[in-house]
């Protein structure tokens, strides 16, 4: 219990009776980097604003370091939010922006100077303290926003798509810096993003959210390898999702896909009866072409092939209404393929997963 810095317990929030957050529960541990990942409008920013105190939950509890904060106004919560638009104060210098929180707390002057300088240094802004926000680049503004929040040493730092406004190269660099910064300050981060790569690159754990619902909360690797639902399988990376029917062969459950029986992994605790309609998910890079010794084999026709640089995509049709994507790196295989050609697609039984519908 003491290890959990933030606990959301059955938190729900509606706007004009349209639910934005539906009974969401999760915990964030001390020093953990958690991402809330989902498409725009899925409620992830609302969850962040609920934790920051800018929205009131309709029901449920929000605990920060063991204290229920639902009735605590934003300026008294031990959290800080890095806004998507940075929300830097345009009439204050970089130094005064960063010092804003400390001044409100009545920290004495000498200490303000020292702490502000330390965090400006930490974010690489040493020489810019006298500038105004309008005189900074996007990346620099981003850092000021970070320093301004972190200098208050919040128990949790909330970040609302903080890298969304930066171009791709800068974003990649800031991702690494952010990760290092988080390790250095040791503060828990809750990071809202719609970018799966960003979530995977940064997070200890990722909460996948759709339509106000928390679908799965696990380390990125587990989410990728073992998505529980179709949405998670599609949102985190790409997936071939095939309709099938459960059958029993040799005393073991199998799934019949496109007229062939395939071996699959059944999620823990799930029980299926013969005849159940299910979805089987296989990652494109875990599928192989023309591997005769493989267990699960399906005949398919090559529709198109695309060269990507470090890999290639082959678009196939197993059935007219069952497309399939295979990603590979073996150029000899790629060169051999021509559209219209018949091939065998295959995958290892442990790579095929049944999804909860």
């Amino acid at each position, binding site marked *: 219990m003491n290890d959990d810095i933030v606990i959301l317990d059955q938190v729900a929030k509606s706007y004009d009776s349209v639910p934005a957050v539906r009974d969401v529960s999760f915990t964030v541990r001390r020093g953990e980097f958690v991402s809330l990942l989902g498409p725009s409008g899925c409620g992830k920013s609302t969850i962040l604003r609920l934790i920051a105190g800018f929205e009131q939950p309709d029901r449920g509890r929000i605990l920060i370091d063991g204290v229920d904060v639902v009735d605590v106004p934003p300026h*008294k919560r031990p959290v800080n939010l890095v806004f998507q638009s940075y929300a830097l104060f345009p009439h204050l210098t970089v130094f005064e922006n960063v010092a804003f*929180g400390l001044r409100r707390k009545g920290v004495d002057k000498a200490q303000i100077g020292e702490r502000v300088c330390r965090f400006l240094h930490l974010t690489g802004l040493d020489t810019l303290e006298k500038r105004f926000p309008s005189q900074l680049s996007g990346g620099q503004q981003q850092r000021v926003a970070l320093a301004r929040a972190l200098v208050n040493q919040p128990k949790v730092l909330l970040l609302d798509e903080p890298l969304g406004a930066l171009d791709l190269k800068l974003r990649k660099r800031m991702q690494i810096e952010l990760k290092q910064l988080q390790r250095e300050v040791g503060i828990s981060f809750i990071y809202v993003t719609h970018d799966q790569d960003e979530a995977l690159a940064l997070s200890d754990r990722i909460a996948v959210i759709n339509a106000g619902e928390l679908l799965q909360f696990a380390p990125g690797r587990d989410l990728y390898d073992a998505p529980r639902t179709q949405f998670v399988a599609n949102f985190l990376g790409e997936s071939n999702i095939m309709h099938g029917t459960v059958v029993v062969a040799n005393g073991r459950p199998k799934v019949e896909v496109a007229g062939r029986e395939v071996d699959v992994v059944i999620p823990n605790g799930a029980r299926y009866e013969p005849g159940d309609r299910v979805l089987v998910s296989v990652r494109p890079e875990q599928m192989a072409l023309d591997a005769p010794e493989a267990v699960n084999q399906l005949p398919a026709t090559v529709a198109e092939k695309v060269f990507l640089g470090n890999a290639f995509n082959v678009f196939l049709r197993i059935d007219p209404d069952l497309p399939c994507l295979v990603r590979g790196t073996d150029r000899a295989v790629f060169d051999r393929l021509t559209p219209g050609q018949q091939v065998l697609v295959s995958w290892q039984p442990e790579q095929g997963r049944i999804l909860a519908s």
Partner: protein
Amino acid sequence: MARTGRQSLGHSLGEIWPLFPGLFLLLVVFALPLAGMLPESFVDADGVGAHRYREIVSDSYYLTVLARSFWLSLVATLICLVLGYPVAYTLVRLTPEGWKRVVYMIVIAPLFTSAVIRAMAWLVILGRQGIVNDALLSIGLIDVPIRLLYTNTAVIIGLVYIMIPFMVLTIAAVLENVNSTLEEAARDLGAAPLVAFWKVTFPLTLPGVFAGSFLVFALCLSSYVTPALLGGGRNKVVAMLIFEQFMRNFNWPLGAALSCVLLFITLLIIWGYNRALARNVVGGRTGREAML
């Protein structure tokens, strides 16, 4: 930055031609008559001289009227600011959009009626048998009607009522551009709601506060109808004095001299204001810039 480039006067003709129609109009209907007034104030049947100005400066009557004009305008402006700012603030943050438009219309609506009609309305309200006195009498707060009309208070009430839309609209225009997220950010950093407003939103709206105050002050100073109707003959303001000299006494040189004094003092105040504003740098953007 683009901003610094725009501050220089080295514009090409192509950039500044849209200025010309307005500039031409101002020149013909404003600057030229004004320029004509200056010599007028120095010349009369007796010859050329500054004795009109000497008369104004040495006569306590003129000085009192001038002082009263400035004082009334200042008080009315400050009241407009104190009453208008909260209205502008609420108006700008109002949701949904539909309500915002309704309130905007309510603020603007009085401007569709002439100032004379609106001042007359206050005659009804403030008179001896007016609504205010009736109400005070009926609840027993007073025994005999109190004198409200034809006082400085009546003039200030009238001016505030007439001018407040200008203050609200000017401040609202600036507030629209101050992102409400900034106030949230301040709250997130530990500022109570009022502190967040005072430390973030208010400083950012100073250009609007200055512009609105200026506009209202200038309009108050030059207003004629409201002080004439609500102030009566005893509480003259400088605009009434000038009107009298031109239209009743036909003392054009004195009227011109009074106008020039008024203009000079007003320009002095504008200059002082601008100096103060220039020092008040708002995020590398001065209030003056936002105003001009």
